[in-house]
Protein backbone atom coordinates (compact mmCIF):
# COMPACT_ATOMS: atom_id res chain seq x y z
CA UNK A 1 0.00 0.00 0.00
CA UNK A 2 2.78 2.37 0.97
CA UNK A 3 4.76 1.56 -2.15
CA UNK A 4 1.65 2.03 -4.25
CA UNK A 5 1.14 5.51 -2.80
CA UNK A 6 4.79 6.45 -3.30
CA UNK A 7 4.79 5.13 -6.85
CA UNK A 8 1.62 7.04 -7.59
CA UNK A 9 3.11 10.25 -6.23
CA UNK A 10 6.30 9.67 -8.21
CA UNK A 11 4.25 9.17 -11.35
CA UNK A 12 2.29 12.36 -10.71
CA UNK A 13 5.51 14.26 -10.05
CA UNK A 14 6.96 13.04 -13.28
CA UNK A 15 3.73 13.68 -15.16
CA UNK A 16 3.51 17.28 -14.00
CA UNK A 17 7.02 18.08 -15.26
CA UNK A 18 6.19 16.39 -18.55
CA UNK A 19 2.92 18.26 -18.80
CA UNK A 20 4.65 21.61 -18.32
CA UNK A 21 7.04 20.84 -21.19
CA UNK A 22 4.60 19.08 -23.51
CA UNK A 23 1.74 21.55 -23.12
CA UNK A 24 3.95 24.34 -24.46
CA UNK A 25 5.10 22.18 -27.36
CA UNK A 26 1.53 21.24 -28.15
CA UNK A 27 0.23 24.79 -27.83
CA UNK A 28 2.84 26.10 -30.27
CA UNK A 29 2.04 23.33 -32.75
CA UNK A 30 -1.69 23.79 -32.35
CA UNK A 31 -1.58 27.49 -33.11
CA UNK A 32 1.39 27.84 -35.44
CA UNK A 33 1.78 24.33 -36.94
CA UNK A 34 5.46 24.36 -36.00
CA UNK A 35 7.19 21.50 -34.22
CA UNK A 36 9.69 23.37 -32.13
CA UNK A 37 12.78 21.20 -31.72
CA UNK A 38 14.38 23.89 -29.58
CA UNK A 39 11.55 23.56 -27.05
CA UNK A 40 13.55 21.20 -24.85
CA UNK A 41 16.40 23.65 -24.73
CA UNK A 42 14.08 26.46 -23.67
CA UNK A 43 13.14 24.16 -20.79
CA UNK A 44 16.84 23.75 -20.03
CA UNK A 45 17.28 27.52 -20.32
CA UNK A 46 14.56 28.02 -17.70
CA UNK A 47 16.38 25.60 -15.40
CA UNK A 48 19.71 27.40 -15.82
CA UNK A 49 18.29 30.88 -15.24
CA UNK A 50 16.35 29.72 -12.20
CA UNK A 51 19.41 27.97 -10.75
CA UNK A 52 21.52 31.04 -11.35
CA UNK A 53 19.05 33.52 -9.84
CA UNK A 54 18.19 31.35 -6.85
CA UNK A 55 21.87 30.64 -6.29
CA UNK A 56 22.61 34.37 -6.16
CA UNK A 57 19.80 35.04 -3.73
CA UNK A 58 20.06 31.99 -1.47
CA UNK A 59 21.74 33.61 1.52
CA UNK A 60 20.12 36.99 1.21
CA UNK A 61 16.42 36.30 1.02
CA UNK A 62 13.87 34.49 3.14
CA UNK A 63 13.31 30.97 1.83
CA UNK A 64 9.72 31.58 0.80
CA UNK A 65 10.92 34.23 -1.62
CA UNK A 66 13.13 31.67 -3.31
CA UNK A 67 10.00 29.94 -4.58
CA UNK A 68 8.91 33.17 -6.19
CA UNK A 69 12.35 33.45 -7.78
CA UNK A 70 11.76 30.13 -9.57
CA UNK A 71 9.48 32.16 -11.81
CA UNK A 72 12.59 33.89 -13.19
CA UNK A 73 13.34 30.76 -15.22
CA UNK A 74 9.88 30.78 -16.77
CA UNK A 75 10.06 34.50 -17.50
CA UNK A 76 13.51 34.21 -19.07
CA UNK A 77 12.36 31.41 -21.37
CA UNK A 78 9.26 33.46 -22.27
CA UNK A 79 11.46 36.47 -23.08
CA UNK A 80 13.66 34.29 -25.29
CA UNK A 81 10.55 33.05 -27.07
CA UNK A 82 9.21 36.57 -27.59
CA UNK A 83 12.54 37.46 -29.16
CA UNK A 84 12.96 34.38 -31.34
CA UNK A 85 9.53 34.14 -32.95
CA UNK A 86 9.44 37.49 -34.78
CA UNK A 87 13.11 37.40 -35.80
CA UNK A 88 13.76 33.82 -36.86
CA UNK A 89 10.46 31.98 -37.28
CA UNK A 90 8.24 34.62 -38.86
CA UNK A 91 10.17 34.70 -42.17
CA UNK A 92 9.54 30.97 -42.61
CA UNK A 93 5.75 30.67 -42.35
CA UNK A 94 5.30 30.74 -46.10
CA UNK A 95 8.02 28.14 -46.68
CA UNK A 96 7.91 24.35 -46.56
CA UNK A 97 7.72 22.91 -43.07
CA UNK A 98 11.12 21.23 -43.51
CA UNK A 99 12.71 24.65 -43.16
CA UNK A 100 10.81 25.42 -39.97
CA UNK A 101 12.01 22.14 -38.50
CA UNK A 102 15.58 22.89 -39.53
CA UNK A 103 15.45 26.39 -38.13
CA UNK A 104 14.37 25.12 -34.74
CA UNK A 105 17.04 22.40 -34.93
CA UNK A 106 19.60 25.15 -35.55
CA UNK A 107 18.22 27.06 -32.54
CA UNK A 108 18.57 23.90 -30.47
CA UNK A 109 22.29 23.70 -31.30
CA UNK A 110 22.77 27.42 -30.62
CA UNK A 111 20.91 27.41 -27.29
CA UNK A 112 22.83 24.35 -26.11
CA UNK A 113 26.15 26.12 -26.57
CA UNK A 114 24.93 29.51 -25.34
CA UNK A 115 24.14 27.82 -22.04
CA UNK A 116 27.57 26.20 -22.00
CA UNK A 117 29.13 29.57 -22.81
CA UNK A 118 27.30 31.48 -20.08
CA UNK A 119 27.17 28.94 -17.26
CA UNK A 120 30.07 26.62 -18.08
CA UNK A 121 30.15 22.88 -18.64
CA UNK A 122 29.39 21.90 -15.04
CA UNK A 123 25.88 21.32 -13.71
CA UNK A 124 24.31 24.21 -11.83
CA UNK A 125 22.41 23.39 -8.68
CA UNK A 126 20.35 25.35 -6.20
CA UNK A 127 18.93 22.76 -3.86
CA UNK A 128 18.29 25.34 -1.11
CA UNK A 129 14.71 25.52 -2.33
CA UNK A 130 13.95 21.84 -2.00
CA UNK A 131 16.07 21.39 1.16
CA UNK A 132 14.05 23.92 3.17
CA UNK A 133 10.94 21.82 2.79
CA UNK A 134 12.40 18.49 3.94
CA UNK A 135 9.89 15.67 4.00
CA UNK A 136 6.35 15.41 5.15
CA UNK A 137 4.10 12.58 6.04
CA UNK A 138 1.01 11.73 4.04
CA UNK A 139 -1.16 8.82 5.11
CA UNK A 140 1.71 7.32 7.03
CA UNK A 141 4.24 7.67 4.24
CA UNK A 142 7.10 10.14 4.30
CA UNK A 143 7.57 11.90 1.01
CA UNK A 144 9.73 14.87 -0.05
CA UNK A 145 7.53 17.94 0.28
CA UNK A 146 9.16 19.65 -2.67
CA UNK A 147 7.95 16.88 -4.99
CA UNK A 148 4.42 17.56 -3.76
CA UNK A 149 4.97 21.22 -4.53
CA UNK A 150 5.89 20.27 -8.11
CA UNK A 151 2.75 18.15 -8.42
CA UNK A 152 0.69 21.11 -7.23
CA UNK A 153 2.42 23.44 -9.70
CA UNK A 154 1.67 21.00 -12.52
CA UNK A 155 -1.98 20.77 -11.51
CA UNK A 156 -2.39 24.52 -11.12
CA UNK A 157 -0.67 25.09 -14.46
CA UNK A 158 -3.02 22.65 -16.16
CA UNK A 159 -6.10 24.38 -14.74
CA UNK A 160 -4.75 27.85 -15.45
CA UNK A 161 -3.84 26.99 -19.02
CA UNK A 162 -7.24 25.41 -19.60
CA UNK A 163 -9.00 28.50 -18.20
CA UNK A 164 -6.77 30.74 -20.26
CA UNK A 165 -7.46 28.95 -23.52
CA UNK A 166 -11.17 28.22 -23.01
CA UNK A 167 -12.37 31.04 -20.79
CA UNK A 168 -10.66 34.24 -21.85
CA UNK A 169 -10.96 36.55 -24.81
CA UNK A 170 -7.36 35.86 -25.73
CA UNK A 171 -8.11 32.16 -25.68
CA UNK A 172 -10.91 32.65 -28.19
CA UNK A 173 -8.53 34.49 -30.50
CA UNK A 174 -5.96 31.76 -30.02
CA UNK A 175 -8.41 29.00 -30.92
CA UNK A 176 -9.77 30.95 -33.87
CA UNK A 177 -6.26 31.43 -35.25
CA UNK A 178 -5.52 27.79 -34.67
CA UNK A 179 -8.57 26.64 -36.60
CA UNK A 180 -8.32 28.97 -39.53
CA UNK A 181 -5.55 31.49 -39.59
CA UNK A 182 -6.76 33.32 -42.70
CA UNK A 183 -10.35 33.58 -41.50
CA UNK A 184 -9.19 34.86 -38.12
CA UNK A 185 -7.07 37.43 -39.88
CA UNK A 186 -10.02 38.48 -42.06
CA UNK A 187 -12.12 38.98 -38.93
CA UNK A 188 -9.61 41.49 -37.63
CA UNK A 189 -7.48 39.39 -35.35
CA UNK A 190 -3.87 40.42 -35.41
CA UNK A 191 -2.48 36.99 -36.26
CA UNK A 192 1.13 38.08 -35.98
CA UNK A 193 0.53 39.17 -32.41
CA UNK A 194 -1.32 35.97 -31.56
CA UNK A 195 1.65 33.99 -32.90
CA UNK A 196 4.14 35.89 -30.73
CA UNK A 197 1.90 35.49 -27.70
CA UNK A 198 1.31 31.79 -28.29
CA UNK A 199 5.01 31.11 -28.79
CA UNK A 200 5.88 33.16 -25.70
CA UNK A 201 3.31 31.29 -23.64
CA UNK A 202 4.63 27.96 -24.89
CA UNK A 203 8.17 28.93 -23.92
CA UNK A 204 6.93 30.19 -20.54
CA UNK A 205 5.52 26.74 -19.79
CA UNK A 206 8.78 25.07 -20.83
CA UNK A 207 10.79 27.49 -18.70
CA UNK A 208 8.48 26.88 -15.74
CA UNK A 209 9.00 23.14 -16.13
CA UNK A 210 12.76 23.63 -16.13
CA UNK A 211 12.63 25.95 -13.13
CA UNK A 212 10.62 23.62 -10.91
CA UNK A 213 12.64 20.52 -11.79
CA UNK A 214 15.94 22.34 -11.23
CA UNK A 215 16.12 22.10 -7.40
CA UNK A 216 15.93 18.30 -7.75
CA UNK A 217 17.92 17.42 -10.84
CA UNK A 218 20.00 20.56 -11.26
CA UNK A 219 20.58 22.34 -14.55
CA UNK A 220 22.67 20.09 -16.79
CA UNK A 221 23.77 20.32 -20.40
CA UNK A 222 21.84 17.91 -22.57
CA UNK A 223 18.75 17.94 -20.33
CA UNK A 224 16.82 19.73 -23.04
CA UNK A 225 17.63 17.16 -25.69
CA UNK A 226 16.53 14.34 -23.40
CA UNK A 227 13.37 16.16 -22.36
CA UNK A 228 12.32 17.05 -25.89
CA UNK A 229 12.13 13.46 -26.99
CA UNK A 230 9.95 12.53 -24.02
CA UNK A 231 7.74 15.54 -24.67
CA UNK A 232 7.38 14.25 -28.23
CA UNK A 233 6.21 10.92 -26.89
CA UNK A 234 3.68 12.73 -24.70
CA UNK A 235 2.23 14.87 -27.48
CA UNK A 236 2.22 12.00 -29.95
CA UNK A 237 0.21 9.86 -27.53
CA UNK A 238 -2.12 12.69 -26.61
CA UNK A 239 -2.37 14.31 -30.01
CA UNK A 240 -0.28 17.20 -31.33
CA UNK A 241 -1.99 20.49 -30.63
CA UNK A 242 -4.34 19.26 -27.92
CA UNK A 243 -4.01 20.43 -24.31
CA UNK A 244 -6.17 17.63 -22.91
CA UNK A 245 -3.98 15.27 -24.92
CA UNK A 246 -0.83 16.72 -23.35
CA UNK A 247 -2.30 16.14 -19.89
CA UNK A 248 -3.40 12.56 -20.57
CA UNK A 249 -0.19 11.80 -22.45
CA UNK A 250 1.90 13.15 -19.57
CA UNK A 251 -0.02 10.99 -17.09
CA UNK A 252 0.37 7.88 -19.25
CA UNK A 253 4.09 8.45 -19.76
CA UNK A 254 4.52 9.33 -16.08
CA UNK A 255 2.90 6.13 -14.87
CA UNK A 256 4.50 3.88 -17.49
CA UNK A 257 7.89 5.29 -16.67
CA UNK A 258 7.49 4.76 -12.94
CA UNK A 259 6.29 1.22 -13.56
CA UNK A 260 9.10 0.71 -16.03
CA UNK A 261 11.81 1.81 -13.62
CA UNK A 262 10.52 -0.70 -11.08
CA UNK A 263 9.76 -3.71 -13.26
CA UNK A 264 11.50 -3.45 -16.64
CA UNK A 265 14.27 -0.91 -16.27
CA UNK A 266 16.24 -2.04 -19.33
CA UNK A 267 13.49 -1.57 -21.86
CA UNK A 268 11.60 1.23 -20.11
CA UNK A 269 12.50 3.86 -22.71
CA UNK A 270 12.01 1.46 -25.61
CA UNK A 271 8.50 0.67 -24.31
CA UNK A 272 7.65 4.38 -24.21
CA UNK A 273 8.75 4.95 -27.81
CA UNK A 274 6.90 1.82 -28.88
CA UNK A 275 3.71 3.05 -27.20
CA UNK A 276 4.10 6.30 -29.12
CA UNK A 277 4.67 4.43 -32.37
CA UNK A 278 1.65 2.18 -31.78
CA UNK A 279 -0.61 5.13 -30.97
CA UNK A 280 0.60 6.93 -34.07
CA UNK A 281 -0.02 3.81 -36.09
CA UNK A 282 -3.54 3.25 -34.82
CA UNK A 283 -4.63 6.86 -34.42
CA UNK A 284 -2.17 9.01 -36.37
CA UNK A 285 -3.42 12.23 -34.86
CA UNK A 286 -3.17 10.97 -31.27
CA UNK A 287 -5.77 9.99 -28.70
CA UNK A 288 -7.28 13.46 -28.41
CA UNK A 289 -7.10 14.51 -32.01
CA UNK A 290 -9.11 17.44 -33.20
CA UNK A 291 -10.32 16.48 -36.66
Amino acid sequence: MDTLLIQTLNSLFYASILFLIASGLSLVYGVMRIVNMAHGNLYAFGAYVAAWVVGLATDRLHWTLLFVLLLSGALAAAAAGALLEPTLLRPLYTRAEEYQLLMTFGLLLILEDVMRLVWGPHPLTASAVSDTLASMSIMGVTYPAYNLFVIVVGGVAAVALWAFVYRTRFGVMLRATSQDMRMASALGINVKRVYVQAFTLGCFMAGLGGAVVMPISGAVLGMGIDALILAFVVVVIGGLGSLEGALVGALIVGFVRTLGITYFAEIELAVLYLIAAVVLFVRPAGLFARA
Partner: protein
Amino acid sequence: MSPAPGRPGLLTPLELVGILTVAVVLVAVPFVAAPFQTITLCYGLVFAIAALGFNLLLGYTGLLSFGHSAYFGTGAYVTALLVKYLGWTSMEAFVVAGIVTSAAVAGLFGLVCVRYTRIFFGILTLALSQVLWSLALKLFWVTGGTDGLRVPTPRLFLGALTPAEDKLAFLAYRYYYYVLFLFGISVAVMWLVVHSPFGKALQAIRDNETRAEFVGVQVRRYRWIAFVVSGAFTGLAGTLWVPLNGLTTPDVLYWPFSGRIVFFVVLGGFKTFWGPILGALAYNYLETYAVGFTVYWQLVLGIVLVLLVLTMPQGLAGTLDALIRRWRKPALT
Protein backbone atom coordinates in the same frame (compact mmCIF):
# COMPACT_ATOMS: atom_id res chain seq x y z
CA MET B 1 18.60 15.84 -60.93
CA SER B 2 17.95 17.95 -63.97
CA PRO B 3 20.21 16.99 -66.83
CA ALA B 4 19.93 18.63 -70.22
CA PRO B 5 16.31 18.70 -71.37
CA GLY B 6 15.40 16.03 -73.89
CA ARG B 7 18.14 13.68 -72.79
CA PRO B 8 16.89 12.30 -69.53
CA GLY B 9 19.33 10.22 -67.59
CA LEU B 10 22.37 11.13 -69.63
CA LEU B 11 25.29 13.13 -68.39
CA THR B 12 26.20 16.29 -70.24
CA PRO B 13 29.82 16.51 -71.45
CA LEU B 14 30.44 19.21 -68.84
CA GLU B 15 29.16 16.95 -66.06
CA LEU B 16 31.27 14.07 -67.35
CA VAL B 17 34.41 16.20 -67.32
CA GLY B 18 33.51 17.38 -63.81
CA ILE B 19 33.03 13.85 -62.51
CA LEU B 20 36.30 12.64 -64.04
CA THR B 21 38.20 15.58 -62.58
CA VAL B 22 36.77 14.97 -59.12
CA ALA B 23 37.53 11.24 -59.43
CA VAL B 24 41.17 11.94 -60.33
CA VAL B 25 41.50 14.34 -57.41
CA LEU B 26 39.96 11.83 -54.99
CA VAL B 27 42.32 9.07 -56.16
CA ALA B 28 45.33 11.37 -55.86
CA VAL B 29 44.59 12.62 -52.34
CA PRO B 30 46.55 9.97 -50.33
CA PHE B 31 49.68 10.73 -52.39
CA VAL B 32 49.67 14.45 -51.82
CA ALA B 33 47.86 15.01 -48.52
CA ALA B 34 48.84 14.25 -44.94
CA PRO B 35 47.23 11.13 -43.39
CA PHE B 36 45.04 13.33 -41.20
CA GLN B 37 43.63 15.07 -44.28
CA THR B 38 42.99 11.78 -46.05
CA ILE B 39 41.19 10.33 -43.04
CA THR B 40 39.08 13.48 -42.69
CA LEU B 41 38.11 13.16 -46.34
CA CYS B 42 37.38 9.47 -45.77
CA TYR B 43 34.86 10.40 -43.03
CA GLY B 44 33.35 12.87 -45.49
CA LEU B 45 32.92 10.17 -48.16
CA VAL B 46 31.26 7.85 -45.65
CA PHE B 47 28.83 10.59 -44.62
CA ALA B 48 28.22 11.32 -48.30
CA ILE B 49 26.94 7.76 -48.80
CA ALA B 50 24.52 8.30 -45.91
CA ALA B 51 23.46 11.64 -47.40
CA LEU B 52 22.84 10.04 -50.80
CA GLY B 53 20.58 7.46 -49.20
CA PHE B 54 18.78 10.06 -47.11
CA ASN B 55 18.13 12.27 -50.11
CA LEU B 56 16.32 9.52 -51.97
CA LEU B 57 13.61 10.16 -49.37
CA LEU B 58 13.82 13.92 -48.89
CA GLY B 59 14.83 15.16 -52.33
CA TYR B 60 13.18 12.57 -54.55
CA THR B 61 10.21 11.27 -52.56
CA GLY B 62 9.48 14.36 -50.47
CA LEU B 63 9.66 12.65 -47.08
CA LEU B 64 11.68 14.21 -44.26
CA SER B 65 12.97 11.46 -42.01
CA PHE B 66 14.23 12.44 -38.60
CA GLY B 67 15.25 8.90 -37.74
CA HIS B 68 18.04 7.97 -40.10
CA SER B 69 20.40 7.49 -37.18
CA ALA B 70 18.59 4.14 -36.82
CA TYR B 71 20.04 2.77 -40.07
CA PHE B 72 23.47 4.31 -39.69
CA GLY B 73 23.58 2.90 -36.16
CA THR B 74 22.33 -0.50 -37.30
CA GLY B 75 25.17 -0.74 -39.81
CA ALA B 76 27.66 0.30 -37.15
CA TYR B 77 26.35 -1.93 -34.35
CA VAL B 78 25.91 -5.02 -36.52
CA THR B 79 29.57 -4.77 -37.49
CA ALA B 80 30.65 -4.29 -33.89
CA LEU B 81 28.49 -7.17 -32.66
CA LEU B 82 29.81 -9.50 -35.38
CA VAL B 83 33.34 -8.68 -34.24
CA LYS B 84 32.52 -9.16 -30.57
CA TYR B 85 30.40 -12.31 -30.67
CA LEU B 86 31.38 -14.13 -33.87
CA GLY B 87 34.94 -12.89 -34.23
CA TRP B 88 34.42 -11.90 -37.85
CA THR B 89 37.19 -9.82 -39.40
CA SER B 90 36.36 -9.58 -43.10
CA MET B 91 35.16 -6.16 -44.23
CA GLU B 92 33.17 -7.65 -47.11
CA ALA B 93 31.18 -9.71 -44.64
CA PHE B 94 30.52 -6.58 -42.58
CA VAL B 95 29.38 -4.67 -45.63
CA VAL B 96 26.94 -7.38 -46.68
CA ALA B 97 25.67 -7.86 -43.12
CA GLY B 98 25.36 -4.10 -42.59
CA ILE B 99 23.39 -3.55 -45.78
CA VAL B 100 21.11 -6.54 -45.21
CA THR B 101 20.29 -5.77 -41.57
CA SER B 102 19.77 -2.05 -42.06
CA ALA B 103 17.54 -2.78 -45.06
CA ALA B 104 15.62 -5.25 -42.89
CA VAL B 105 15.20 -2.69 -40.08
CA ALA B 106 14.18 -0.07 -42.63
CA GLY B 107 11.74 -2.56 -44.14
CA LEU B 108 10.13 -3.12 -40.76
CA PHE B 109 10.03 0.53 -39.69
CA GLY B 110 9.01 1.54 -43.20
CA LEU B 111 5.86 -0.58 -43.03
CA VAL B 112 4.64 1.75 -40.30
CA CYS B 113 6.19 5.03 -41.43
CA VAL B 114 5.22 5.22 -45.10
CA ARG B 115 1.55 5.30 -44.19
CA TYR B 116 2.11 8.93 -43.23
CA THR B 117 3.72 11.99 -44.71
CA ARG B 118 4.96 15.37 -43.57
CA ILE B 119 5.35 15.97 -39.87
CA PHE B 120 3.85 12.65 -38.74
CA PHE B 121 6.31 10.77 -40.92
CA GLY B 122 9.13 12.73 -39.29
CA ILE B 123 7.95 12.07 -35.75
CA LEU B 124 7.28 8.39 -36.38
CA THR B 125 10.73 7.79 -37.85
CA LEU B 126 12.17 9.68 -34.88
CA ALA B 127 10.24 7.64 -32.31
CA LEU B 128 11.20 4.31 -33.88
CA SER B 129 14.87 5.24 -34.15
CA GLN B 130 14.85 6.06 -30.46
CA VAL B 131 13.65 2.53 -29.65
CA LEU B 132 16.97 1.28 -31.05
CA TRP B 133 18.90 4.00 -29.25
CA SER B 134 17.39 3.15 -25.88
CA LEU B 135 18.09 -0.55 -26.42
CA ALA B 136 21.74 0.14 -27.31
CA LEU B 137 21.98 2.33 -24.23
CA LYS B 138 20.24 0.08 -21.73
CA LEU B 139 21.22 -3.45 -22.80
CA PHE B 140 24.79 -2.70 -21.77
CA TRP B 141 25.81 -6.32 -21.29
CA VAL B 142 25.26 -6.82 -25.02
CA THR B 143 26.13 -3.42 -26.44
CA GLY B 144 28.54 -1.99 -23.88
CA GLY B 145 26.10 0.82 -23.01
CA THR B 146 27.57 4.31 -23.20
CA ASP B 147 31.09 2.87 -23.46
CA GLY B 148 30.12 1.41 -26.82
CA LEU B 149 31.91 -1.38 -28.64
CA ARG B 150 35.44 -1.37 -30.03
CA VAL B 151 36.12 -2.51 -33.57
CA PRO B 152 39.66 -3.41 -34.68
CA THR B 153 40.87 -2.77 -38.22
CA PRO B 154 39.26 -5.35 -40.49
CA ARG B 155 40.76 -7.45 -43.29
CA LEU B 156 39.96 -6.17 -46.75
CA PHE B 157 39.15 -8.11 -49.92
CA LEU B 158 38.52 -11.45 -48.22
CA GLY B 159 41.74 -11.21 -46.28
CA ALA B 160 43.93 -10.57 -49.30
CA LEU B 161 44.97 -7.38 -47.54
CA THR B 162 45.69 -7.97 -43.88
CA PRO B 163 46.09 -4.96 -41.63
CA ALA B 164 49.76 -5.63 -40.93
CA GLU B 165 50.89 -2.04 -41.17
CA ASP B 166 50.15 0.51 -38.47
CA LYS B 167 46.59 1.70 -38.09
CA LEU B 168 47.02 5.28 -39.27
CA ALA B 169 48.71 4.24 -42.51
CA PHE B 170 46.09 1.57 -43.04
CA LEU B 171 43.21 4.03 -42.67
CA ALA B 172 44.84 6.77 -44.73
CA TYR B 173 45.76 4.49 -47.58
CA ARG B 174 44.12 1.11 -48.07
CA TYR B 175 40.96 1.82 -46.18
CA TYR B 176 40.56 5.17 -47.90
CA TYR B 177 40.62 3.48 -51.31
CA TYR B 178 38.24 0.84 -50.07
CA VAL B 179 35.76 3.54 -49.01
CA LEU B 180 36.34 5.49 -52.22
CA PHE B 181 35.58 2.37 -54.25
CA LEU B 182 32.29 1.75 -52.43
CA PHE B 183 31.49 5.45 -52.59
CA GLY B 184 31.88 5.33 -56.38
CA ILE B 185 29.60 2.30 -56.59
CA SER B 186 27.04 3.96 -54.32
CA VAL B 187 26.96 7.11 -56.44
CA ALA B 188 26.57 5.07 -59.63
CA VAL B 189 23.80 2.91 -58.17
CA MET B 190 21.94 5.91 -56.78
CA TRP B 191 22.29 7.70 -60.10
CA LEU B 192 20.72 4.73 -61.85
CA VAL B 193 17.96 4.49 -59.24
CA VAL B 194 16.88 8.12 -59.48
CA HIS B 195 16.99 8.09 -63.28
CA SER B 196 15.11 4.82 -63.61
CA PRO B 197 11.35 4.69 -64.13
CA PHE B 198 11.15 3.90 -60.40
CA GLY B 199 13.02 7.13 -59.59
CA LYS B 200 10.74 9.10 -61.87
CA ALA B 201 7.72 7.60 -60.14
CA LEU B 202 9.11 8.74 -56.78
CA GLN B 203 9.47 12.27 -58.10
CA ALA B 204 5.92 12.12 -59.37
CA ILE B 205 4.80 11.11 -55.87
CA ARG B 206 6.77 13.98 -54.38
CA ASP B 207 5.29 16.54 -56.76
CA ASN B 208 1.71 15.37 -56.66
CA GLU B 209 0.65 12.28 -54.78
CA THR B 210 -2.89 12.24 -56.12
CA ARG B 211 -1.87 12.55 -59.74
CA ALA B 212 0.81 9.90 -59.31
CA GLU B 213 -1.82 7.56 -57.95
CA PHE B 214 -4.10 8.29 -60.88
CA VAL B 215 -1.47 7.38 -63.45
CA GLY B 216 -1.04 4.05 -61.72
CA VAL B 217 1.86 4.54 -59.31
CA GLN B 218 1.40 2.44 -56.18
CA VAL B 219 2.28 5.29 -53.87
CA ARG B 220 2.65 3.48 -50.58
CA ARG B 221 4.57 0.58 -52.05
CA TYR B 222 6.98 2.86 -53.92
CA ARG B 223 7.52 4.92 -50.78
CA TRP B 224 8.30 1.74 -48.88
CA ILE B 225 10.86 0.60 -51.46
CA ALA B 226 12.46 4.05 -51.41
CA PHE B 227 12.55 3.84 -47.60
CA VAL B 228 14.32 0.47 -47.68
CA VAL B 229 16.86 1.56 -50.31
CA SER B 230 17.50 4.73 -48.35
CA GLY B 231 18.02 2.73 -45.16
CA ALA B 232 20.39 0.31 -46.89
CA PHE B 233 22.62 3.14 -48.17
CA THR B 234 22.70 4.75 -44.74
CA GLY B 235 23.46 1.36 -43.17
CA LEU B 236 26.38 0.87 -45.55
CA ALA B 237 27.70 4.25 -44.42
CA GLY B 238 27.40 3.15 -40.78
CA THR B 239 29.33 -0.05 -41.49
CA LEU B 240 32.12 1.82 -43.26
CA TRP B 241 32.27 4.40 -40.49
CA VAL B 242 32.99 1.94 -37.66
CA PRO B 243 36.56 0.83 -38.59
CA LEU B 244 37.37 4.48 -39.25
CA ASN B 245 36.18 5.54 -35.84
CA GLY B 246 37.36 2.34 -34.11
CA LEU B 247 34.40 2.54 -31.74
CA THR B 248 30.64 2.77 -31.89
CA THR B 249 28.59 4.36 -29.11
CA PRO B 250 24.84 4.95 -28.74
CA ASP B 251 25.45 8.51 -29.95
CA VAL B 252 25.16 7.35 -33.56
CA LEU B 253 21.66 6.10 -32.78
CA TYR B 254 20.57 9.18 -30.81
CA TRP B 255 18.28 11.57 -32.61
CA PRO B 256 20.69 14.54 -32.90
CA PHE B 257 22.71 12.30 -35.23
CA SER B 258 19.65 12.07 -37.48
CA GLY B 259 19.60 15.86 -37.39
CA ARG B 260 23.18 15.81 -38.54
CA ILE B 261 22.28 13.72 -41.61
CA VAL B 262 19.48 16.17 -42.38
CA PHE B 263 22.05 18.95 -42.00
CA PHE B 264 24.38 17.35 -44.61
CA VAL B 265 21.65 17.25 -47.16
CA VAL B 266 20.22 20.70 -46.57
CA LEU B 267 23.68 22.24 -46.50
CA GLY B 268 24.42 20.72 -49.91
CA GLY B 269 20.96 21.27 -51.32
CA PHE B 270 18.37 18.51 -51.48
CA LYS B 271 16.98 19.52 -54.85
CA THR B 272 20.03 18.28 -56.74
CA PHE B 273 21.70 14.90 -57.12
CA TRP B 274 25.20 16.09 -56.17
CA GLY B 275 24.16 18.50 -53.43
CA PRO B 276 23.99 15.96 -50.57
CA ILE B 277 27.49 14.67 -51.42
CA LEU B 278 28.86 18.20 -51.43
CA GLY B 279 26.97 18.93 -48.22
CA ALA B 280 28.31 15.88 -46.38
CA LEU B 281 31.90 16.72 -47.35
CA ALA B 282 31.47 20.39 -46.46
CA TYR B 283 29.77 19.59 -43.17
CA ASN B 284 32.52 17.18 -42.24
CA TYR B 285 35.21 19.85 -42.78
CA LEU B 286 33.08 22.43 -41.00
CA GLU B 287 32.65 20.20 -37.97
CA THR B 288 36.24 18.92 -37.92
CA TYR B 289 37.65 22.45 -37.96
CA ALA B 290 34.98 23.94 -35.71
CA VAL B 291 35.69 21.22 -33.11
CA GLY B 292 39.44 21.86 -33.41
CA PHE B 293 38.96 25.60 -33.19
CA THR B 294 36.46 26.01 -30.36
CA VAL B 295 34.54 24.00 -27.78
CA TYR B 296 31.47 25.89 -28.92
CA TRP B 297 31.33 24.11 -32.27
CA GLN B 298 27.60 23.44 -31.92
CA LEU B 299 27.09 27.19 -31.76
CA VAL B 300 29.01 27.58 -35.03
CA LEU B 301 26.99 24.80 -36.68
CA GLY B 302 23.71 26.20 -35.35
CA ILE B 303 24.45 29.67 -36.69
CA VAL B 304 25.43 28.19 -40.06
CA LEU B 305 22.18 26.24 -40.19
CA VAL B 306 20.06 29.26 -39.26
CA LEU B 307 21.77 31.44 -41.86
CA LEU B 308 21.46 28.69 -44.43
CA VAL B 309 17.71 28.37 -43.89
CA LEU B 310 17.24 32.14 -44.01
CA THR B 311 19.48 33.04 -46.93
CA MET B 312 20.41 29.92 -48.93
CA PRO B 313 17.48 27.48 -48.82
CA GLN B 314 18.75 25.81 -52.00
CA GLY B 315 21.97 24.84 -50.26
CA LEU B 316 25.50 25.00 -51.65
CA ALA B 317 24.69 23.13 -54.87
CA GLY B 318 21.60 25.21 -55.57
CA THR B 319 23.41 28.47 -54.96
CA LEU B 320 26.35 27.35 -57.10
CA ASP B 321 23.94 26.32 -59.82
CA ALA B 322 22.22 29.71 -59.76
CA LEU B 323 25.59 31.47 -59.97
CA ILE B 324 26.68 29.38 -62.95
CA ARG B 325 23.38 30.01 -64.72
CA ARG B 326 23.69 33.75 -64.19
CA TRP B 327 27.23 33.65 -65.51
CA ARG B 328 26.32 31.62 -68.59
CA LYS B 329 23.16 33.46 -69.46
CA PRO B 330 24.68 36.30 -71.51
CA ALA B 331 26.59 33.75 -73.63
CA LEU B 332 23.41 31.87 -74.46
CA THR B 333 21.30 34.82 -75.57
